[in-house]
């Protein structure tokens, strides 16, 4: 018979994505048998993170203070607010070194068929953030999926009446992309969204 605390651990591990009963059992035995120190570290780190990590009051990303470092930085352009779906997307934008403004992280997207609408996503908080009187432009950097597009549409409809400029990052053929290797969907949309060349 499995001791109840072991059973509880196995059950708890199953909350991880992609972990079924079998791998949960393997993980539990590994932690208890082979790596008790690692288990201790994991437990401490988990508890510590749970206690100290919260959402930034301005950009909604994970932070240990009320307002994250980026939002507090005087070097960032307060007039631009870039809306992304996840913290990972924000990191991707940062890696471009092409953007000096601030962010708002949605922590999700509108997905009507999953029952996730503006209310579930807390878009009223984005509205309040964008209407701080300083933001002039909101840049939509949501995914180019149907859900990312639906999210962008909703945010545009929400912000436009308040006189905020809403822009959307462009899509098309990737930099260094040879047409031969670009997927047809991207190429078709790039053709539809072609722009006039100026000399």
């Amino acid at each position, binding site marked *: 018979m499995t001791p109840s605390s072991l059973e509880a651990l196995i059950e708890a591990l199953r909350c991880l994505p992609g972990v079924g009963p079998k791998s949960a059992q393997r993980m539990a035995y590994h932690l208890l048998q082979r790596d008790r120190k690692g288990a201790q570290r994991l437990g401490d780190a988990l508890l510590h993170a749970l206690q100290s990590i919260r959402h930034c009051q301005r950009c909604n990303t994970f932070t240990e203070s009320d307002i994250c470092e980026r939002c507090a930085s005087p070097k960032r352009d307060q007039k631009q607010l870039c809306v992304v779906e996840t913290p990972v997307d924000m990191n991707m934008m940062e890696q471009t070194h092409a953007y000096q403004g601030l962010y708002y992280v949605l922590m999700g997207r509108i997905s*009507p*068929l999953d029952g996730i609408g503006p209310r579930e996503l807390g878009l009223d908080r984005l509205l309040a953030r964008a209407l701080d009187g300083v933001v002039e432009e909101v840049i939509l950097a949501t995914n180019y999926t*149907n859900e990312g597009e639906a999210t962008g*549409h909703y945010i545009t409809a*929400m912000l436009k009446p308040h006189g905020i400029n809403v822009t959307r990052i462009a899509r098309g053929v990737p930099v260094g992309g040879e047409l031969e290797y670009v*997927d*047809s969907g991207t190429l078709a949309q790039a053709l539809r969204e072609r722009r006039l060349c100026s000399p």
Partner: protein
Amino acid sequence: MQRQKVDAQPAYVLHTYPFRETSLIVEAFSRDFGRIALLARGARRPRSAVRGLLMAFQPLELSWAGKGEVLTLMKAEWQGGQPLLVGQALFCGYYLNELLIHLLPREDPHERLFERYSQMLGSLGNDPAGKVSEPELRRFEKALLQELGYGLTLNVDSAGTPVEVDAFYAYEIEQGPVRQEQGGQAVRGQTLLDLAAENFSDPRTRVEAKQLMRSLMAYYLGGAELATRKIFKELQEL
């Protein structure tokens, strides 16, 4: 059920659900097999060949194999020609997909409805601003009910008398139009006849036809509230 292998079947993705760490369950509407559920193994891996392809509202050709409730997706090919949906049209697309998911039985072929759906998406994608043509939407809803065997009676009332332009009717599911003494919640005979002829030039017809379709859909959905309608309402309340 016999093990089957289907090649290059025209289909649309209706919705996808994450499954395990890297896979997807794909609800699709195929031309010859109706609504099917496919397991797309590894579809959420960064370099998956079908990642980004299994997108709703885009014409695809799907190949699958297997038997039972969930079949395994073998291949997906992008067919093209359908602009991505934007704005209101996108939300309307979600509404259509939710209707199909709720109302179409599994593996029940509806080739004509497939054609209508494909045309409807074409019309939704054609407006660059994403405006929705209400008459087109009514025609689709009507065709959907017809295909499911819930065709509407619109020209004759419950007593077998031809519907009159100036009279008022309550639409009862089993009986069709029941003539009423007064207006109230009823629809005009004109609206019923216009809906039969699919003529939506009269603004009152458009309003009443929308209400009638809404109540019929609510009935056939068996009380299930549509998530897309709730979200669409939140959008319009802005």
